């Protein structure tokens, strides 16, 4: 069987990394897989893995199956292909006003990484077969580097480290995270907050200072540790390992790779309820923050060309900041006073690693 994989896997961003993982997962099940990149933005990687190169160098006269891992707006139906599969990820809910529904209905199958997104598509009028399949991650790399820690001077201390890995966009809600951290803990608590993001650390720091000023809380509170350097996959694992508890009070996630990575490394994630992350994070292996539905009113856009998503016809979920504070305090107390429960939560996360392996996900996609 000849397969073709179309995706922005050469992009140097979350889309690109996710697409590469999907390519590697499908490649475990399909020998004759060729791959062709598309680009939504001009930010691309200079080198790719041998698996990707190998797939790029393959070309067949005919294809039996085409996988398009892209925005639903970009999907193309080709009737000469036996099976057209769309793989997509959306962070908001309700696409009933979007043209993309028509595109998806032309495909033979749509794969989404979470139950929440499958529900969204069904409610929006997508009638084609929808499969829920997690985003794959390189579990072998995680197993190999499970003890690796990143060497950042700022991270070498004995504090309990809350951390997040997120783009600096409104959806990721980093301001609520910073505010919650400041309200949850005082200088007397042995805690710190690490933020790995793509924004310039000085600019971000001054924005957080402004937030602090607006909050009117004590001036002597600790500053956040901001890491804006680009990190390799292995160093990213090192960053997870140097910290203790992953927190992401995001408004919407289709899957969130850093949250899954944190889970399998035993970093007891605290994440927003009603998002795509709740397919693999629950109150046993992590903490869910209560959230309420609200319309998507934001300056953030997926792409300038795509006008019919990220608008107020859709909704996402605003996390309850007080519940976030409560959860942060709860895990810290658990860490200090109830090590057994703390370790049990960690273990539940670590033991769930194989559900994300390339092989398992590849099998599900190609099934």
């Amino acid at each position, binding site marked *: 069987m000849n397969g073709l994989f*179309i995706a922005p896997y050469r992009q140097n961003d979350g889309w690109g990394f996710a697409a590469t993982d999907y390519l590697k997962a499908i490649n475990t099940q399909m020998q004759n897989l060729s*791959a*062709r*990149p598309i*680009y939504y933005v001009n930010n691309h990687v200079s080198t790719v893995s041998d698996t990707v190169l190998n797939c790029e*160098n393959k*070309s067949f006269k005919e294809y039996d199956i*085409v996988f398009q891992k892209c925005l639903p707006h970009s999907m193309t139906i080709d009737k000469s292909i036996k099976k057209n599969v769309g793989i997509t990820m959306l962070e908001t809910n309700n696409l009933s006003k979007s043209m993309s529904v028509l595109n998806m209905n032309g495909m033979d199958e749509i794969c989404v990484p979470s139950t929440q997104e499958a529900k969204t598509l069904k409610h929006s009028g997508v009638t084609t077969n929808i499969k829920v399949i997690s985003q794959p991650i390189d579990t072998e790399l995680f197993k190999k580097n499970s003890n690796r820690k990143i060497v950042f001077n700022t991270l070498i201390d004995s504090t309990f480290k809350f951390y997040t890995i997120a783009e600096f966009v409104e959806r990721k809600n980093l301001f609520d995270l910073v505010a919650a951290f400041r309200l949850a803990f005082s200088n007397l608590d042995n805690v710190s907050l690490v933020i790995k993001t793509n924004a310039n650390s000085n600019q971000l720091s001054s924005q957080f200072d402004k937030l602090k000023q607006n909050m009117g809380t004590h001036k002597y509170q600790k500053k956040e540790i901001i890491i804006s350097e680009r990190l390799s996959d292995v160093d990213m694992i090192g960053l997870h390992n140097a910290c203790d508890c992953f927190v992401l009070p995001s408004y919407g996630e289709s899957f969130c790779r850093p949250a899954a990575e944190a889970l399998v490394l035993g970093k007891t994630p605290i994440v927003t309820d009603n998002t795509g992350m709740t397919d693999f994070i629950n109150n046993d292996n992590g903490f869910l923050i209560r959230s309420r539905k609200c319309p998507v009113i934001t300056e953030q856009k997926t792409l300038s*060309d795509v006008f019919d998503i990220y608008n107020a016809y859709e909704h996402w979920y605003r996390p309850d900041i007080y519940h976030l504070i409560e959860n942060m305090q709860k895990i810290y107390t658990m860490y200090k006073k109830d090590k057994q429960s703390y370790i049990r939560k960690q273990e539940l996360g670590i033991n769930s690693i194989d559900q994300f392996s390339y092989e398992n996900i590849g099998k599900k996609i190609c099934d």
Partner: protein
Amino acid sequence: MRLNTITSSLLHQLLNDETNIVYYPTLGIFDQILYLTNNNFFVFSDNLKSCSDNCRCLNSEFVDLYDYDICCASSIMSYRQQCSQLSDKINVNRIIFEHNLPDAELKKEDRFILNNDLIKIKKIFFDTTIMESWNFDNSVLCNYGIPTHKFFPIPDVKKVKNILISSGSVLGNQLKQHFEDKMELKCDVVKNMAEVSIDTINKVFNTYEIFIDLSNRTIDCLCAASAGMYSISLSSLKNIDNVPNISQVNTIEDIVNIVPLVKDKNINIEETHKYIDEHFNFNKFESIINSMFKNVKREAKVL
């Protein structure tokens, strides 16, 4: 813009036998010869008329009407301006045709940077001297191919005028003035040969005795020679002055001096066609260009 252009073009590249090419024309005869390779060409220009059935000239607002396979720029220096953005937008691979020597003002350092910037893009040169002068990576040599079955002397067509000058600058008009005033010759200047059919060009060529190329379009000279004109070229293309009825000169003064010598000269068209078919064979050109298009369209687009 149709939002699925990027994937639909990609599927076209891999599944369709036809090749759709976004092309930036040279406005010379090379365009017409390229159209003879039987691919589909799309020229985005508001003011250009189509000159061939397989070339569609469209307003740039209608880019998303079709799926594309390749975007071709007409020179290294015009690549950025011509097809860099569009090729990214429609997700197609790129090819650069380079017909000329690097500009004398282009510094070595700038050429080095340009080479690095364009390293992933295939460059096609039509002459070894020109290719060696640029000395760019990822370059391919493909000699011009002249379709002698399209450019030939038409029996019974009289040569009613003396000289046809191909020139985009004021120099052409100055030369015309000179030939008309001092030598009493009938002379015309042509700027753009992009909007008439190849058969019409051959008919027009058949009505003149001499062709002078000031536009640095060597291929025009070869076609004129094939049509039975005596051709004078300022170009540095190798082998061109071995064509029996082409003279390669260095200066405008040389042109002025050579015209009285070649006027009324008998041309042995069999010999000319034999040489052209041997050294500038159209079938060979067509086969190289088509195999290049076929390969490039199916390659993964790497930025």
